[in-house]
């Protein structure tokens, strides 16, 4: 397994370089270093001299990918791409283009993101799996049909609608929770409860349908029929045997997103004023802050790769037949 881990880690390197290169290219196709300087220096009374100094200070005065003025390795290393990318692999995110330390910002903003993402994820998982089990249990009955119709309806509605409707009903009309805001520490629950509930509710349709399909596939297998014939109660059968055997497809979708949870939710954070990493990334894109965009994309890629690795590892836990080699 150790060899497997080493191999997967080595596979990750070209992926990360590729992701970094694509991010870099896409960003600089849309924004030139001059545009970035103008965005940071403001639109009023900006001189060319100030723009040149701003670029020089941050290393944006060099060529993007290839430096003809240099010789040897310098043609590749004396470029914006090399300068901005190498440190990322040591997880040194450096400073944002506005001069703030990105690592410090990430450490500060990951907690509010987690405060939303973790409960949404775990409560959601519980609700979706239970609801899907219920539909699988009553498969073919009016309860199952009603559940599927409900799921399709919920899937068809935009996530934004749930947010606006939730804020309107529970905050504006019923005055039960604050419309938006955040408080650090334990008192965060007042601000988190509504976005979490909305996050869970918004995912019921698609996730429950997906799990229902998995359970239905599993429920028709021979061992289930045998267990039922032996008189095993249906709930025991579903939760102890069917769930366990359906874990591989479930884990495929679940474990991979676990590490990325702290990257936050862009829309929820924005509407509920949650100062997390989702809104951090959006702000960076709006402000053309390449340093932050690059750091967040890199971090997202690393976490996703980590998630895939964890998924593979988790297969060995739920299915003893699987060996990593």
């Amino acid at each position: 397994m150790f060899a497997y881990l080493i191999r997967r880690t080595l596979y990750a390197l070209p992926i990360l370089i590729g992701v970094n290169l694509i991010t870099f290219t896409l960003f600089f196709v849309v924004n030139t270093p001059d545009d970035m300087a103008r965005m940071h220096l403001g639109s009023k009374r900006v001189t060319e001299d100030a723009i040149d100094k701003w670029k020089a200070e941050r290393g944006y005065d060099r060529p993007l990918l290839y430096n003809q003025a240099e010789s040897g390795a310098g043609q590749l290393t004396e470029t914006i791409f090399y300068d901005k990318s190498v440190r990322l692999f040591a997880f040194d995110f450096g400073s944002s283009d506005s001069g703030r330390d990105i690592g410090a910002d990430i450490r500060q903003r990951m907690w509010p993101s987690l405060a939303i993402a973790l409960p949404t994820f775990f409560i959601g998982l519980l609700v979706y799996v239970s609801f899907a089990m219920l539909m699988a249990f009553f498969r073919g009955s009016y309860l199952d049909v009603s559940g599927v119709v409900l799921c399709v309806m919920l899937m068809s509605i935009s996530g934004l609608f749930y947010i606006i409707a939730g804020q309107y009903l529970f905050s504006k009309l019923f005055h039960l929770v604050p419309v938006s805001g955040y408080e650090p520490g334990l008192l965060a629950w007042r601000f988190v409860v509504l976005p979490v509930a909305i996050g869970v509710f918004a995912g019921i349709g698609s996730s429950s349908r997906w799990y229902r399909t998995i359970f239905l596939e599993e429920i028709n297998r021979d061992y289930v029929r045998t267990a039922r014939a032996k008189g095993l109660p249906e709930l025991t059968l579903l939760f102890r045997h069917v769930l366990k055997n359906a874990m591989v497809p479930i884990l495929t979708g679940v474990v991979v997103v676990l590490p990325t949870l702290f990257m936050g939710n862009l829309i929820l954070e924005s509407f509920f004023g949650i100062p997390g990493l989702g809104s951090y990334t959006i702000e960076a894109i709006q402000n053309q802050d390449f340093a932050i965009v690059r750091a967040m994309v890199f971090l997202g890629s690393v976490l996703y790769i980590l998630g895939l690795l964890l998924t593979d590892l988790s297969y060995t836990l739920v299915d003893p037949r699987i060996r990593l080699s």
Partner: protein
Amino acid sequence: MRVPNSLSQFGKSAFIRVLLSVAVVFAGGCNDQPWNSPYPPQQAGQEILYASFGERPNHLDPAQSYSSNEVVFTGQIYEPPLQYHFLKRPYELEPLTATRMPEPYFVDEAGQRLPDDTAPDDVAYSIYEIEIMPGIRYQPHPALAKSAEGDYVYHHLTETGLEGISTLGDFSETGSRELVAADYVYQVKRLAHPHLHSPIFGLMSDYIVGLKDYSKTLEEEAGKAGANAYINLHDYPLEGAEVIDRYRYRIKLRGVYPQFRYWLAMPFFAPVPWEADVFYSQPGMKDRNITLDWYPLGTGPYMLTINNPNRQMVLERNPNFHGETYPTQGEEGDAEAGYLKDAGAPLPLIDKVVYSLEKEAIPYWNKFLQGYYDSSGISSDSFDQAVQIGSAGDISLTPALKEKGVKLNTAVSASIFYMGFNMLDPVVGGDSERARLLRQAISIAMDYEEFISIFSNGRGLPAQGPLAPGIFGHLEGEEGMNPYVYDWGPYGLQRKSIEHARKLLAEAGYPDGRDVETGKPLVLYLDTPGGGPDDSARMNWLRKQFEKLSIQLQIRATDYNRFQDKMRKGTAQIFQWGWNADYPDPENFLFLLYGKNSKVEHNGENAANYVSEEFDQLFERMSNMPNSPERQEVINRMVEILRYDAPWVFGFYPKQFVLYHDWYSNAKPNLMANNTLKYRRVSPDMRELKRHAWNQPVLWPLGMLVLVLIVAIVPAAIAYRRHEARNLSTVKH
């Protein structure tokens, strides 16, 4: 299997502990405050103003902050020598930390003093000598903390000394000292600091003697000292800014620049103590995001005590504030409006201001309606909920808001939105009669009254020239009318008919929108940023305006970067842009059409690249004149030239609508001053009462939710039991 007793006991006590913890957490949120209150209960009843911000300020260093979302903070913290009178209109400057208004005197090249009425061309230098009040002290700050021996406590920090420090509040010691003239001089020098990129450095280096060379000197020093190293600006004298004595300093400007006094009312010219730069430039501070750009240090009525622009920014009363009183005079009608009730009262009137991050308009509006923000603008989404416009165009609040006691203030901004023609373009630009008539015809066809009504909910005034209302030189009524676009009718301004515009177009050689020489239809191009679905209605409207003249308008939508690039290169043909005035002087509008400010040739703000010899000569004359009938005459001529040449379609002056609750007073809008927070007042008791009345929790939906769940679960449970019973009987058989 029996659970051992001790384990069972342990389980019970752990369970109780968890329950208690949960209870404590929930109790923390449950108190006599409304359930939906976003603020901690400790703040109830305090003199706190609640406001919001949508975007984190990029800069709080007074050498850099320029945007409106930045000066809303720096304006309360830093004190330049002058300020705008809160109530008087037209806007009037008055001393803030200065003892009196500085009057410049003029000298020649040899330094000999010249009479005050010397012609501007004969003046080599203008000298401002500014005296500040003694006894003003800085806010408490670690940079100024001194030990009993008189040494600065935090000026020689090491990495180990910074352990456990992550914000400015982690420094236990603070100190203060008296403001001296040298601090103002120090800040003028900072404008040239190569690492600060002050947005006004380019402009000021044209005026402040020696500032350009000073920047080069600092650049060399910065190169030697390395990034972030402290450069002691006291070691490098600047001819244009010198200390006279402890409370007086001198600024020497090249030539005559009367508008300089307005800059003296902006944070760019507020004092910064040298200790701040020493403190913040120490190794390890920047890595912790502890910089002057993040933690300001000023003498103003407020100090920034919490700076978490990801969530909240808090201004609190500066305990060392030197004291100031509410104005005792205002303009006509101020007393009746209640703006003089606090006359003579010590400032600031509010202890604390809490700014919360609010990125979306809907939650912001809902919180205002719930009483959690004291004032609010009006977005297009909520306009109909807030304001109703009568058949005669009269504006009033909706009954729902009136019932809440909400009040409305309106003010015309010192801004203009316009459509510009690139004067370098061979079709719409240039000085030919043909192009001029074409521009005049388009000016008539562009129905900005309709635009304001459709896209701005009536919040704007059709512009008659470049000068916004409230700016010296702007004329009202018939004498202020643009005669090339409007007629004066029985009900005031009346846009000329489209037939008249078509006639002008025909005279220009485009009868029915076709080029008389080639017979081809006239196609014009408008470059604009955006172009998304949100903009489609506006784009269609624009096309329709041109269609009135049978001109085809092609809209070339692009992102803002490309748009700016086109403007810099002069490749756009027609564009839309706007301008917010820096200060209330006609120079700050008319310079947008001054030839030496053209964007393509001089990288200036004259985006239309308009050049008129006569206009430029008048501009140079007008810029140096005091407000007087002679200046008005010059301005009138300049405006007439612009109206005739029509390099812009003068669009509209936006109108600002501000709503505020009845517990919020002294809400008079002042669109020039950025330090008006100290004059505002809130009545916390009234606010508490109303918040409680408006936000009583409605609990029946929770009961209903539980009921729905039961209704959904019970049949499922029954069905399950039946299913299980059936299965069991099948197995038995």
